[in-house]
């Protein structure tokens, strides 16, 4: 009897927390479907008639047709870059003996400790000097470099767990080192690649500080930066802003619902290192 009550209490607590976690998103969606006057009157819980046209207005007025594709481009290119560069580095650290290995590993850890507030001003200056502000290439390069340390360490962990004699067997078959890496080792480290891709994909999509600093050309901005532009422009209408926000977050929520297992795995493998 006591067990039953405490189980009930436990579920009560969990349901309460779940409502707390989900409600703000739900409330945003409800607001995004109301008329302006409903919104400001603030008396109704649900829109009398869902205003889907808010989404059309948000899409055109908010320039989401520019910002969303930009974000896609940045996310895909940065994630591919991070995967290539960090799996190469992680492989060398896990499976090749060379001088200075301990120093390189330590340097990766040290670089990870450098906090963004310590370097973003100087990063901006560097990008100005290199002519890489308002540049897709500049933004992607700096995103890749931000993702490397943790990703290389995660990949190192996955490579280190593979059987020892893979390279020797491949070498006997006359395969070159790079070929062995690409054809034999990499496919076996797929779970690691997925974990890195998922975590870095979310990080890049949501990146804000560097986008804020590096872009003032509207046509190049990723969606987080673009949305802020829309918010601070003229007199924004609340329901349209909410609709624009909902559109911007939709890809992430869909991705998360389908890939939540990988997201959870990625978070754990990233933090334990």
């Amino acid at each position, binding site marked *: 009897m006591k067990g039953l009550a405490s189980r009930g209490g436990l579920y009560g607590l969990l349901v309460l927390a779940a409502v707390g*976690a989900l409600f703000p998103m739900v*409330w945003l969606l409800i607001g995004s479907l109301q008329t302006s006057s409903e919104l400001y009157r603030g008396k109704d819980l649900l829109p009398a008639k869902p205003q889907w046209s808010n989404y059309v207005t948000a899409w055109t007025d908010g320039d989401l047709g520019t910002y969303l594709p930009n974000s896609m481009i940045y996310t895909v290119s940065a994630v591919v870059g991070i995967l290539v560069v960090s799996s190469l*580095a992680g492989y060398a650290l896990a499976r090749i*003996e060379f001088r200075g290995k301990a120093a390189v590993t330590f340097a990766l850890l040290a670089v990870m400790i*450098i906090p963004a507030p310590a370097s973003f001003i100087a990063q901006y200056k560097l990008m100005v000097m290199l002519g890489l502000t308002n540049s897709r290439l500049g933004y992607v390069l700096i995103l890749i470099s931000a993702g490397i340390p943790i990703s290389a360490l995660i990949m190192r962990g996955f490579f280190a767990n593979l059987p020892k004699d893979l390279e020797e067997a491949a070498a006997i078959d006359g395969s070159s080192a790079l070929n062995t890496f690409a054809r034999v080792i990499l496919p076996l480290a797929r779970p690691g690649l997925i974990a890195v891709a998922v975590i870095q994909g979310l990080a890049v999509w949501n990146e804000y500080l560097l986008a804020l600093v590096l872009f003032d050309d509207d046509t190049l901005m990723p969606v987080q930066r673009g949305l802020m532009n829309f918010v601070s422009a003229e007199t924004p209408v609340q329901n349209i802003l909410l609709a624009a926000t909902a559109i911007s977050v939709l890809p992430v929520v869909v991705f*998360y619902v389908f890939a939540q297992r990988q997201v959870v795995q990625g*978070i754990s493998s990233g933090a334990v290192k």
Partner: protein
Amino acid sequence: MAYAFLLPAVLLLAVFTLVPFVQAVVLSFQQWDGVSTASPFVGLSNYKFVLHDTVFWSSMRNVLIFGVAGFVLGNALSLGMAIAVNRVRRGKAFFRTAFYLPGVFSVVVIGMMFSWLLAPNAGIVNRLLGGVGLSGLQHNWLEDPGTALPAVAAVFLWYHWGFGFILYLAGLQDVPVELYEAADLDGAGGWAKFRYVTWPDLLPVTAIVSLLTLLGALQVFGTVQVLTNGGPGDHTMVPTLRIYQEAFTNQRFGSAAAMSVIFGGALVLLAMLHLWLSRRRK
């Protein structure tokens, strides 16, 4: 051979991470307006300037609220909810997915969401308070100097507790079942099991979660910038936002760099101290 594999990573990190880190120190002794190619040396004057910037120092004090909220409340919430979810049989996956959902939003989404929830008249928080007859507790949460900082810190907590929760949950699932069985045989109650089995076994996870949440909280930027932009007055100003404004609003990149060095240096020291402490405990 190994060097060829490492080359791209080393090159990118050197150019885009290490050079700027060193550059930040150099820039803190220079004057730069953000555009021109000239940045003359000015000695210690940036540091002198920062020393007297009361807003910067009060931003350091404000961010401690975020740090403490994340470190104490966030940690407790994450651990408590992880234990709760780990104990139920049905719906584990649902609760896990729901609790981490806020963690996949961007700061801009968080900002839009909560300026709407906390809006003075139409905001649901004030409406609910009014609805249950507590209209005395209604506030203009984000613009009242008395409530702005706690409100933003609460939003930050809501946004981030899922991260520690995921790590604690993974850690709990790794605690050997035999330990609990042995504790059962010894007649240990719920609290004793937590104190002598769960807690010691989770210590490494606790160390890493508290370090990451603490550092994350101290570096808070976007959540604050989008919700209040440091206001009202400077009541919710945090160091990273102050550094950003000093550079991009006031066009004083030199003193912004000096703030970077002071604040960034403090963060690095804190991280090293924490790592050293948690390693020593082992």
